[in-house]
């Protein structure tokens, strides 16, 4: 999974292609780890070290996964659960970026913006989703907007902070050059600050997605009828442990895929990262 999700937004993500030998080696380690975990897991459940209620075998989890995908589980198929959760997480990401990036620009470029918005972000940043979930439900009801909002709030700080630190990292002379060419304030933001901040914003998006997946289960705690978080809770109520683990694995898989997708975007569209 992510090897850099906990990095501060200032740091650029490591480039996997720095040396041609690194990627296969890293992949080998990753595969080795997965194999080892599966082996220990299989032994622990197969030899009866742990009760199947606590830890069903990998095979049973695989079967649960297949059952959810074909017959469905908890009122919907696995694909419908996945679709509902993906929609919530990515709607939250888009919405948060639409608010968080301009907020970051304001904080980084205007004293008033910083004075007003910085305390708000610092206030929201450490709040645990389960703490503000009841308030969101009181304010916005139990519908879809509440679920997206809960996830979005968890994503806000990483997006804003990465935007601010990305803009701060723009070269002073890069900004001065644009001003000397007659750029307006807005043109400096559009032509220099935002492009310079893109690598950091992308790192912020990766962290935000991590936060989004983390918050998903909380968001689907109340009045959901679809979603991976809902599916896990539904299964947990009936101690269907294999389905709980299957749900967790699907979330982990989606998180990994979205992380890899962002890295691909980075390599394709931000090729200057780590250069010059």
């Amino acid at each position, binding site marked *: 999974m992510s090897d850099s999700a906990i990095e501060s937004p200032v740091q650029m993500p490591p480039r996997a292609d720095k040396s041609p030998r690194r990627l296969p080696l890293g992949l080998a380690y990753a595969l080795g780890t997965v194999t080892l975990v599966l082996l220990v897991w299989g032994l622990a459940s197969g030899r009866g070290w742990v009760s199947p209620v606590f830890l069903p075998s990998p095979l049973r989890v695989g079967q649960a996964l297949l059952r959810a995908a074909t017959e469905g589980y908890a009122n919907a198929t696995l694909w419908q659960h996945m679709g509902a959760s993906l929609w919530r997480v990515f709607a939250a990401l888009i919405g948060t970026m639409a608010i968080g990036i301009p907020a970051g620009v304001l904080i980084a470029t205007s004293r008033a913006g910083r004075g007003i918005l910085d305390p708000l972000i610092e206030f929201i940043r450490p709040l645990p989703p389960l703490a503000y979930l009841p308030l969101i439900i009181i304010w916005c009801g139990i519908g879809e907007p509440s679920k997206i909002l809960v996830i979005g709030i968890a994503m806000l700080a990483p997006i804003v902070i990465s935007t601010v630190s990305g803009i701060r990292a723009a*070269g002073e*002379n*890069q900004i*001065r*050059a*644009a*001003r*000397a*060419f*007659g*750029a307006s304030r807005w*043109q400096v933001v559009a*032509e*220099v600050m935002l*492009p*310079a901040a*893109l690598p950091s914003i992308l790192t912020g998006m990766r962290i935000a997605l991590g936060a989004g997946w983390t918050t998903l289960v909380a968001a689907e705690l109340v009045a959901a009828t679809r979603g991976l978080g809902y599916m896990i809770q539904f299964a947990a109520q009936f101690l269907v442990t294999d389905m709980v683990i299957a749900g967790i694995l699907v979330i982990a898989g989606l998180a990994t895929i979205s992380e890899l997708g962002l890295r691909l975007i980075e390599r394709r569209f*931000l*090729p*200057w990262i780590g*250069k*010059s």
Partner: protein
Amino acid sequence: MTDLASQAVTLDRAQSARSVLSLRDVSLNYGAGIAVLQNLSLRIERGEFVSVVGRSGSGKTTVLNLAAGFLTPDAGQVLIDGRRVTGPGPERAVVFQDDALYPWRSVADNVALPLKLAGVPASERHARAARLLEAVGLAGEGAKRIWQLSGGQRQRVGIARALAAQPEFLLMDEPLGALDAMTRELMHGLILRLWQDSHAGAMLITHSIEEALFLSTRIVVLAPGPGRIVHEESADWGRRFLSGNDPRALKSEPGFIAARERLVDAIYEREAA
């Protein structure tokens, strides 16, 4: 701005009679109470090539940043043709030591940015960027990425970019500071030709006395604590180079060597013998 209007502006700039950029009795202290520059006055006319030399920390970069409008003096004024200016503007272009290019733009798009900001339409920007790149010896390199260029090539892109909007003044802060000696010598010829063709007034900050002497029509020596001008002298080695003289021969003329000694003495505040 329409195409015609932008052309009219650039024509106007290129043909306008002598303009003068001047710092008048400027003082600056960076808010720390210690004067970095005190009552410094400096004039640059179009067609002149003024170099500012001095020890590290004597305030050379500060002088350039004031002239460019990046800093505002605590006392005194920055004037263009007698009119006070309070910020940067496209009539003064800057070349930075750390090239300050934009890695998210291609080489050609870096050069074209000032034109974009001036409202020149895309097709004309591209044509002009290509011509500018040709002028700095980078014909056909426009599609490359900044990081694919050498240090010398990057500075040429920086110079092409600075010249794109046909500025009246070209301000350069140690543009060749990071280059090797061979590349520097090649760049000297290039800078002189571009200066001549653009009819701009040039201000060059450099720590190389020989470079200042060879390129400039006037050399200004800045002494630190607080920064002030302690010596000025005129020169014409660059013009003689442009009229066909061999650079090596020029640099070994007794007049060149004597002037270099005078400048060294002034920089290190030694009494002339």
